[in-house]
């Protein structure tokens, strides 16, 4: 059986209703959690920020909330994990397909991957969540790990 998104989700790197002003603040916060939990090296955050500047990851979704999926090359990853944040108010990320445009984002999956080819099921699950406004809405209202896992299980 494929290893699922629930299994990759790092409980210590799950933030509900984060109050942030900028995308950089969101990314620094989540990367810090992944670092302290032993998933990434200290330089990972700079990689993610650099990539976000050149190749942003904001995704306008169908429902009322939009998402971003910051990630970067594999070299600063110790073991694979996913950090997640819901944001108390929208924070601007730039649009992946059109970096001149901004997307107000409230759901962030930060991906620390080391073997992307073998983590395809998990990535597809992220994409399935994003394509389903009902699941996104449930994640936005989640307040504990159990609720998040229950929601992701449906994807």
């Amino acid at each position, binding site marked *: 059986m494929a290893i699922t998104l629930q299994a990759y989700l790092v409980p210590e790197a799950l933030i509900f209703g984060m109050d942030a002003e900028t995308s950089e603040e969101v990314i620094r916060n989540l990367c810090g959690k992944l670092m302290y939990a032993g998933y990434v090296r200290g330089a990972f955050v700079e990689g993610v920020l650099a990539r976000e500047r050149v*190749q942003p*990851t904001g995704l306008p979704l*169908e429902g009322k909330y939009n998402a971003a999926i910051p990630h970067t090359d594999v070299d600063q990853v110790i073991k694979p994990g996913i950090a997640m944040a819901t944001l108390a108010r929208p924070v601007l990320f730039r649009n992946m397909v059109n970096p001149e445009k901004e997307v107000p984002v409230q759901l962030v999956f930060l991906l620390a991957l080391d073997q992307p080819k073998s983590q*395809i099921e998990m990535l*597809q699950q992220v994409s399935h969540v994003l394509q389903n406004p009902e699941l996104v809405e449930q994640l936005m209202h989640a307040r504990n790990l159990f609720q998040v896992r229950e929601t992701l299980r449906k994807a």
Partner: protein
Amino acid sequence: MPQAKRILVACGTAIATSTVVAKAIEDALRERGIEVITRQCKASEVASMVEGMDLVVTTTPVPTNLGVPVIQTLAFLTGIGKEAVIEQIVKALNQK
């Protein structure tokens, strides 16, 4: 049996996004009875990887003067406009 069409799938790092997109394209086209071969690359590698390809699908801006059709879309990640993009891909492949 016609030769399978080749699609180059590009994203920022060729880590996460293009993996999802390539798989989604393969699945969607297979459902329509079209077998395709996909290859993934970074946006910055598109120009050097495009030879022999029939189509480029990208989630991030790439040069458009590549000599093959280029489709820029987030539909395979977000679901928005997915059917229309699949139509567009089928059409682009048929024109080759």
